[in-house]
């Protein structure tokens, strides 16, 4: 057994200790977070860092309480969260609705892929911040341009993931379908689509992450609401506590969104990852 800092660590090498039981793993994670917060609190108490640069947890809690009751810039905190979520979902739902079928079609039909691929591969790695001036010129400074920026990030991620999923369809399964007399349409519906579902979910999960990341960029576009805007706005007034609160809210919301998708994935594609 390996020792790290004198602690005996059971690893994947040990035949019987491959996985932590669910509750134990969660308990260890929780303790780890609690320990980190305690160190942070202790550091603040001992004056190891300036509260202006890194406000202690207590102060952030107080700001949070204050903002829950009074809001930020005359608007309640939940409203900012809701506005940001609204923008992300407003972009995300069309990204899934268009991205999944178009992506799958690209994977199935090489000609379509050849037509679209140059644009997809050009825009996908492009930092979406670079598009902001053009997006403002073309779509104005309203909600449309913010939603569009998030949409384009999520859409491209889904497109690429779904194209790979469909083109990677197992040849054996296609042969099986054909031998059973399936038409092309039936092959798509009964073999290609369900076979691609696990990877579709993975790309959707990635897209939520990418979309949530783009939110900050989107809320730099002349916004006056939203968590991303709150972080940017508070930073210009040196309200580091509010900046940190915003970051924590962004992180937590992203984490919860991811958990929701993983839960959906378990329900809809229970066979994923099983031999």
């Amino acid at each position, binding site marked *: 057994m390996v020792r790290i800092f004198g602690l005996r660590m059971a690893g994947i090498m040990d035949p019987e200790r491959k996985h932590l039981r669910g509750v134990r793993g969660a308990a260890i994670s929780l303790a780890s977070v609690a320990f980190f917060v305690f160190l942070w609190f202790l550091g603040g108490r001992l004056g190891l860092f300036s509260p202006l640069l890194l406000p202690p947890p207590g102060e952030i809690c107080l700001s949070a309480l204050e903002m829950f009751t009074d809001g930020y810039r005359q608007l309640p905190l939940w409203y900012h969260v809701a506005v940001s979520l609204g923008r992300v979902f407003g972009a995300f739902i069309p990204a899934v609705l268009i991205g999944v079928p178009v992506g799958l079609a690209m994977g199935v039909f090489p000609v379509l892929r050849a037509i679209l691929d140059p644009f997809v591969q050009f825009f996908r790695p492009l930092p979406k911040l670079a598009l902001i001036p053009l997006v403002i010129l073309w779509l104005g400074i309203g909600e449309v341009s913010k939603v569009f920026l998030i949409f384009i990030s999520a859409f491209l991620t889904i497109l690429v993931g779904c194209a790979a999923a469909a083109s990677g369809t197992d040849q*054996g*399964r296609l*042969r*099986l*379908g*054909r*031998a*059973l*007399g*399936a*038409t092309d349409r*039936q092959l798509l519906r*009964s*073999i290609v689509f*369900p*076979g691609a*579902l696990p990877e579709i979910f993975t790309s959707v999960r990635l897209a939520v992450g990418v979309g949530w990341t783009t939110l900050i960029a989107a809320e730099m576009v002349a916004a006056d609401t939203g968590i991303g805007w709150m972080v940017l706005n508070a930073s210009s007034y040196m309200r580091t506590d509010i900046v940190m609160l915003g970051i924590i809210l962004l992180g937590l919301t992203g984490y919860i969104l991811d958990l929701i998708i993983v839960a959906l994935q378990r329900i809809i*594609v*229970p*066979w994923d990852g*099983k*031999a």
Partner: protein
Amino acid sequence: MAAPAAGTGGGRVVFDRIAHSFSVGNGESPTEAIADFSLEMEEGSFVCLLGPSGCGKSTLLNLLAGFDRPSSGRVLVGGRPVLRPGPDRGIVFQEANLLPWRNVLENITLGPELAGRPREETFAAARRFIRLTGLEGFESHAPYELSGGMRQRVALARAWITEPPILLMDEPFGALDAQTRLSMQELLVSILEVTGATVLFVTHDVDEALFLADVIVVMTPRPGRIRQTLVPPFPRPRRYERLLLNPAFTELKHDILQAIRRPEYEI
């Protein structure tokens, strides 16, 4: 459910002077997989293609399945050339190839479902083949909950549920352990007694061929041609334990092994 297509000629298979080559990469000279292969399979007969790996036996099966067209020559089923895959030729692959999003019953009923058969009729047929393949009680299991042998039973039932006049089997028991393989071979024979079909069975296992086949076609290494065709003289029903005690079995096995391993120039 349609009766086994006995006497209609739909189960008669002819390979007529087949040659087949394929190119691996661009610019490479094509590999000759099959050369001058002719074979007639009587309706309802069980033919084993036996040979070393790479001799083109799976290629021949793919040609009959319609996944591929021969470079020259014709494959005829019931007198008509094979142009594409079709439900008249059921296939069992080496891998069970079950769809993981469907349970056992749904995997078995895939063929009739694609053909738009009525549900009542499909379920009646499914119940029959679930019984024949010994899958009772596993209908709602997911494929990943099954052992290799059980998965292959599902693959058998799936290929068989529409009672195609022809069955193609590409080393279907090759990935199973010896005991499971034997019980699957016995299962296959017992179902054939009930349903009847023309079977093309690809294997490199001499025992398996001797136990199952009406006709054994021994092939040469690439390019594959027929080295020898022989008819195992064992009456049915065959018992594997009895075959082992039969001197003719040992002698045939010896001859076949020698034929397979004999170098090309001795022909």
